[in-house]
């Protein structure tokens, strides 16, 4: 119980730091940008964590939810709707898309679901790319008073919401069903779990989070020169990478993974340029092969080893 409070207080302190720092000092736009990007990745990776990490359904097309929400948020906001409503609407549209995609594909076996979602995301990219061939941008009035601060705090709020959602869902009956489905779908079915229903629920909640990330992105970016890139599979890949590295099926795994991802990106983009994508690919495969539980699980691997060496040295 003591460790529980210790963890919570450490968390609380970090949270307070993150909240208060920008108010007292000027962190500079670079750091603020990185933080906002981090927030976005945390939310997006939590989205994949829900459907992939907890429920075991490998969704290779979450970028579709992300992109749709970004677009809807963008246009609503441009039309004069408040950003908060716009993001909510964006998330809603992501959920609707998830229902449309999910209902047919979730009935399929794992492999077909994976490739099906990949295919649909590709189709979305092609369709959207064909419709919106030119840049979509905001009128000048939006960019004149652009400040990262509200975006920072909105991002932070959304991260907290996302974490709370994951916490609540995974500790509820839904979460129990999700994990049962992941561990042994047949057994779950046989013991009365309504597998299809919970897969759909998991996907819908996952879509909400992807939608939040997308809405945040619309708020941060304002204009998009290549709408095509909004639906690029690299968003899906990054989310997967963050979850796999950090540890799927855990509350903080995606957070750790996102931090890892963002930090590495910052380091590599300057030194390797395009090649950093390739390096990430290798890291991804290595982690899947060697550290299936990610860094969170790595702790469980390291701890007994450390304990053993400490004991033997006494």
């Amino acid at each position, binding site marked *: 119980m003591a460790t529980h409070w210790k963890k919570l207080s450490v968390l609380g302190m970090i949270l307070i730091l993150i909240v208060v720092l920008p108010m007292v000092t000027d962190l500079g736009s670079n750091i603020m940008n990185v933080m906002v990007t981090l927030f976005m990745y945390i939310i997006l990776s939590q989205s994949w964590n829900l459907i992939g990490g907890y429920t*075991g359904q*490998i969704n*290779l097309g979450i970028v579709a939810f992300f992109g749709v929400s970004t677009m809807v948020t963008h246009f609503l906001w441009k039309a004069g709707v408040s950003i908060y409503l716009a993001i909510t609407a964006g998330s809603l549209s992501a959920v609707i898309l998830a229902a449309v995609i999910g209902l*047919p*594909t979730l*009935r*399929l076996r*794992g*492999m*077909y679901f*994976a*490739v*099906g979602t*990949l*295919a649909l995301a*590709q*189709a979305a990219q*092609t369709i959207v790319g064909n419709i919106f061939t030119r840049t979509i941008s905001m009128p000048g009035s939006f960019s004149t008073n652009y400040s990262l601060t509200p975006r920072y705090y909105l991002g932070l709020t959304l991260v907290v919401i996302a974490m709370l959602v994951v916490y609540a869902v995974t500790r509820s009956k839904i979460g129990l069903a999700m994990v049962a489905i992941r561990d042994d*779908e047949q057994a779950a079915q046989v013991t009365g779990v309504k597998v299809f229903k919970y897969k759909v629920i998991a996907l819908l909640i996952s879509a909400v989070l992807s939608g939040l990330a997308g809405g945040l992105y619309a708020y941060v970016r304002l204009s998009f020169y290549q709408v095509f890139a909004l639906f690029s599979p690299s968003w899906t*890949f990054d989310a*997967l990478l963050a979850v*796999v590295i950090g540890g799927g099926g855990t509350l903080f795994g995606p957070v750790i993974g996102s931090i890892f991802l963002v930090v590495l990106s910052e380091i590599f983009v300057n030194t390797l340029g*395009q*090649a950093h*994508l*390739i390096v*990430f*690919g*290798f890291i*991804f*495969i290595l982690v*899947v*092969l060697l550290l*299936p539980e990610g860094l969170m699980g790595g702790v469980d691997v390291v701890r007994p080893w450390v304990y053993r060496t400490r004991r033997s040295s006494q």
Partner: protein
Amino acid sequence: MNAVIQTVLIGIAIGALYALVALGFGLIMGVMKFVNIAHGSFIIIGGYVAYWLFTLLGIDPYLSIPAVMLVMFAMGLILYRLLFSPLLKYPRAEMRLDKSLLITFGVMWILDNTVTLLWTPDTRSIVTSYTGSTIDILGAKLGFTGLAGLILAFLVAVILHILITRTYFGKHVRAATQDSGAASLSGVNVQRTYLISCGIAAAVAGVAGVVIVSSYSITPSGGLNWLLTAMVVIVLAGEGNITYILPAGLILGLVQSISTLFVSSAYQEPIALIIFILVLMFKPKGLFASRG
């Protein structure tokens, strides 16, 4: 009448290519129960090898097929040795499948980005002296490259069929597919069988790549589309049934081609997708399931 024959010819030609694309993917999936999402990338790389052999050394693409197959075979061996064999330690089939999905997603990522980095995102295709020429068949015209692709696809399908049904290696493959434990107990080196199957699958992907770069074009990220095509064919053929892949591909090609008589060709992909989902929902074991 000519239009109909034309449509049928085109349908058969493209259907054969679809089958060729699916054969490599189906081999890995049927034998090892792994999904290779990077299959499309393998096809594209095969195309690039042929492209560079042609552009730098002037070798005709169809003559370069043995070389392409060799390179791709090696890639398949590496894929198995490094990435698939560690997965065998998981006893449960679903876990192996999921891991293979993740890993090959990563492989696709690496391959596609490496190719983009090395050779730019530009579209490539091989244009030879005979690229544009056509042959008259029953009053309709069939492109020379289309015909070549057709012949190659049939050749590969037949050779594979003979390999699987009449050679000892083929018996090992079938035994390992039906019960890998019993196969081991019978003296079959299952790991080596898997290894070679992976190599063959990659080599076949390479041949598909050669046909595609000569008949159409390739881009670094184009592999995904071919992967999806392969999946649709596999679903039509019924998982694990390599024998039915050729007919399934032909059917898909014909349906798509005939549909162009009624709707615009822009709907080709959505049509394939719809067929995919319909068959999965109503005939999950494939079109040929009742024949068992």
